[in-house]
């Protein structure tokens, strides 16, 4: 017969997903884009990724230990941050750069605010922007076809000069272009995004509204005569897909309502295009997402769902 029964509060059943399984799926989704990066840029990128992940994991562990808090390595969020940070770096950066980046992302942006869930900016993106303190290092590019550090212009920097890039849109789609480690292959990023959508880790609202906004704006205001081609290059170049699929959808720093997510995506899209067109820097994805990160609380407040039973003309 039963003796010593456990008493606990309902519900007594739980759904399948937990924080760890969600982070694992993000890691899986990032893999195709990382593999294309390794394939195109070779061994240095593997080292950069290893240092970035290692740095994030180390500082997460070290900070929590020094602060006498529970160890949170098991939620894998530090691994995700490390992967994302390395994917936003040029394959030519020295290895001490991701090391510093990992420290900034984990300690300054995330842990000082209370750890997972409490940071108000995306740690990887904030760290990337911090690393622009070394602008020359962050902006030296490598030709994608070989590992011999030939400096090469990215499609986006060519477009900054109002010209269409030399690569075909198909090259940009597959990843045969210069750029950051994880951003070059639109195909790989879309594959990862599809996996996240299918496994219900993310909802389509942010990526769709973000990409559509950029598409509409660049189509309406092209530089040059070929509207459609211009729009296509804008969508496929820079960090737009990496940002729209993996960065802007970060739960912690994006709105918690669907209407909020749509507004947030539109905001990201508008700021991205404005920076690309009028800023002195060719790329605006990182900045646009960070700026929108700061407005998340406001979007949540604006888009609070109408609670059941509070209809204005509710039956009385």
């Amino acid at each position: 017969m039963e003796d010593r029964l456990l008493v606990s509060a309902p519900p007594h059943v739980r759904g399948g997903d937990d924080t760890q399984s969600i982070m694992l799926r993000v890691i899986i989704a990032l893999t195709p884009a990382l593999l294309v990066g390794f394939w195109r840029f070779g061994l240095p990128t593997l080292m950069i990724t290893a240092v970035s992940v290692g740095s994030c994991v180390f500082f997460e562990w070290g900070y929590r230990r020094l602060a006498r808090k529970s160890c949170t390595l098991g939620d894998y969020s530090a691994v995700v941050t490390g992967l994302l940070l390395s994917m936003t770096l040029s394959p030519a950066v020295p290895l001490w750069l991701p090391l510093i980046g990992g420290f900034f992302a984990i300690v300054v942006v995330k842990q000082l605010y209370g750890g997972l869930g409490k940071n108000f900016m995306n740690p990887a993106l904030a760290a990337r922007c911090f690393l622009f303190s070394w602008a020359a290092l962050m902006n030296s590019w490598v030709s994608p076809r070989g590992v011999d550090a030939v400096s090469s212009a990215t499609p986006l920097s060519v477009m900054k000069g109002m010209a269409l890039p030399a690569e075909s849109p198909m090259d940009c789609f597959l990843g045969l272009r210069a750029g950051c480690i994880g951003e070059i292959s639109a195909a790989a990023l879309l594959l990862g995004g599809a996996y996240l959508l299918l496994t219900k880790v993310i909802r389509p609202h942010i990526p769709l509204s973000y990409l559509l906004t950029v598409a509409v704006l660049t189509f309406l205001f092209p530089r040059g005569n070929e509207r459609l081609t211009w729009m296509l290059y804008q969508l496929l170049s820079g960090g737009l897909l990496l940002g729209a699929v993996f960065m802007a959808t970060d739960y912690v720093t994006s709105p918690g309502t669907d209407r909020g997510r749509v507004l947030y995506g539109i905001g990201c899209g508008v700021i991205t295009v404005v920076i690309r067109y009028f800023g002195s820097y060719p790329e605006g994805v990182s900045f646009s997402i960070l700026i929108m990160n700061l407005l998340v609380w406001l979007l949540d407040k604006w888009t609070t769902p109408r609670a059941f039973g509070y209809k204005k003309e509710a039956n009385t």
Partner: protein
Amino acid sequence: MKLHIPGVRIKHTLPDVAPVPSLTLPLPEKLYMPLSMHIGAPAAPCVSVGEQVYKGQKIGEARGAISAAVHAPVSGTVLAIEQWPSARGGECETVIIENDGLETLSPDLCPHPECENDADALVALVRECGIVGMGGATFPTAAKIDSARGKMDTVILNGAECEPGLASDYAAMLERSDALLHGIRLLLMACGAKSAILAIEENKGEAISLLSGKLPADGSVKLQTLPSLYPQGGEKQLIYNTTGREIRSGGLPADVGCAVFNVETAIAVAEAVESGMPLIERYCTLSGSAFAQPKVVRVRIGTPVRHISEAAGGYETAPKKIILGGPMMGMSVYRTDMGVNKGSNGILAMAESGSESERQTSCIRCGRCVENCPMGLMPNYLNLFTRKNAAEKLQEYHVFDCLECGVCAYGCPARLPLVQQMKLGKARLRAWQNAEKARKEAQK
């Protein structure tokens, strides 16, 4: 068709229960009749220790309008009237009856054909027979009819099986379909309503096909199939999903012209008219990994939980947790010697301890709780405001409208105890409101 209220498909480890045939168990030697097994004032005992009682005889008198009478489920002797553990938690005054095994019927029981067309007589009979909402809420049915008489046009019969994994409503609909339809007719008459909606979840196919063939020809009863979502059986959700009417916050079903009755409640009403038998028996689902075979049983009210488990074949493995009710809102208990009550729709015995051993992280702001909340609330923010004791924010974000259905906690990847946080939030807001009231009065 209007938008459906959000809900979730609960994936759980509970097997599908075959609803029929339900099992009738051998009766226990002692039955524990709690005098408080309904919403409202406890019943007052009207028998004394040592007295001989008959099956169906009243042993507790309803105290006031919101209360319900209690009847002896077997014939025998009153052993004691004392505080005893209750299936609703805590202890309450309980009449303990020793079963003489003779099943002698109370001589007062007789059919009540006069109630077929007399609303007042029917309400009086329902009150006399101690009928309460049998979906689990246990609100006295006579009081519900009274509060809604003449104000409504639609009676809704809840065959949605409030909790996933249970099959008590399903069994009742299959085995007592004629009584159910009789009960619906009686409730329509008593409430003065024009039409009834029999709402059944789509996973109860046999009940849908059986009952759709038996509906009255005058079209007064419509059968409506609903998706198997939780919480489909919640009163506000059910009314919205069947009629599109939205009860304002703090309002009652009667405000939108509806009254909701559980299907087993309607059957109990029919039985009271047909034989005069008060509410002393109900369907109860036994499930969970500690049982070899899940099943639906007919139990007398007051039968100890332990007796039911043993008489139904015992456990296959030693249970680590026993839950009265369903997996989402049921209460886990530390002892099993209390009697089941009029709202006991399930007994779950789990061989594994379940959710509490799982890893908890801080909120990752994924927003799933917001997507899934059937009341349109933001549990993520309510959790935050509760932790910060921000009472005004708890009010602004409508913490009092939370049903405590558990959908938010079920889907939470961080495994946060959101239901407890909502309960705590309500308590904190209430304390703040009282303090504010006292402060304002002191100023006067």
